[in-house]
């Protein structure tokens, strides 16, 4: 048996398992630490959901950011062919991971603001303004480093996310106005939009076969 064949066959599976394990550990510690430091569970379900979406953004930003800054280690966890691929796409990946991180922090701050929250209104509003400005700047800046495939996937992700948000809000609104469900809370709406944006990105990349372990 050729020993060089075996590792290459198992590499995608091993990488997928390592990624899943690290994701689970990061998610567990993220949620545990967050709820220890804040009172998110005491301010309602929508705060918990918004915190959860924020943590997902933060975890993704951390994995991609650290992976890009340490390409050799990153190539063992991220879905790339080798470390060179991370180096080639460094600017684009760093920009988007930073934008995701900023948006993640914004969601966690928002989850802990408002009625029953611990974050003052001025800090919550200030964080939103700064986060949107920074993320917007990074997204526009990153766009020029992306090639046509990534731009196409970004557009598809946006379309899919938009369609899912519209469908969910229409159904939710229709049920709610007829007394068949709870009214839409602001935090739930933010969690929905940001969560669907993330889901849209996964659906678009998955449809292009880019989630297949490499």
């Amino acid at each position, binding site marked *: 048996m050729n020993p060089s064949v075996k590792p290459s066959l198992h590499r995608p599976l091993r990488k997928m398992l390592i990624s899943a394990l690290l994701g689970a550990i990061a998610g567990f510690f993220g949620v545990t630490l967050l709820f220890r430091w804040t009172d998110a569970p005491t301010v309602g379900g929508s705060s918990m959901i918004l915190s959860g979406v924020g943590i997902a953004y933060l975890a993704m930003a951390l994995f991609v950011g650290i992976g890009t800054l340490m390409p050799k280690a990153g190539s063992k966890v991220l879905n790339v062919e080798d470390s060179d691929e991370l180096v080639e796409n460094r600017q684009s990946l760093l920009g988007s991971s930073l934008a995701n991180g900023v948006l993640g922090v914004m969601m966690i701050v928002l989850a802990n603001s408002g009625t029953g929250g611990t974050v003052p209104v001025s800090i919550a509003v200030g964080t939103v303004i700064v986060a949107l400005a920074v993320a917007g700047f990074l997204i526009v800046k990153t766009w020029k480093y992306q*090639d046509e495939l990534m731009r196409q996937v970004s557009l598809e992700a946006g379309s899919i996310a938009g369609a899912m948000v519209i469908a969910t809000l229409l159904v939710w609104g229709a049920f709610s106005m007829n007394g068949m469900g709870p009214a839409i809370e602001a935090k739930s709406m933010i969690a929905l939009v940001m969560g669907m944006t993330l889901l849209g990105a996964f659906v678009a990349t998955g449809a292009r076969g880019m989630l297949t372990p490499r």
Partner: protein
Amino acid sequence: MQNRVKHYREGAGWSQGELARRLGVSRQTINAVETDKYDPSLPLALRMAKLFAVDVPDLFIDDWTPESNS
């Protein structure tokens, strides 16, 4: 759309990374084109054809035929 990008790339002795570099796109794009997961834009298809010194229909195979006017 089926294509013969891999055939011509390997014929030229280039890796996916080398072709990506020559075309100014990412390796992921070349991989997606070769595995039929992405149809390139017209400018990129034209550049690929120019690089391999072939016509676009030699590179990208389309089975569609126009209806006859009879």
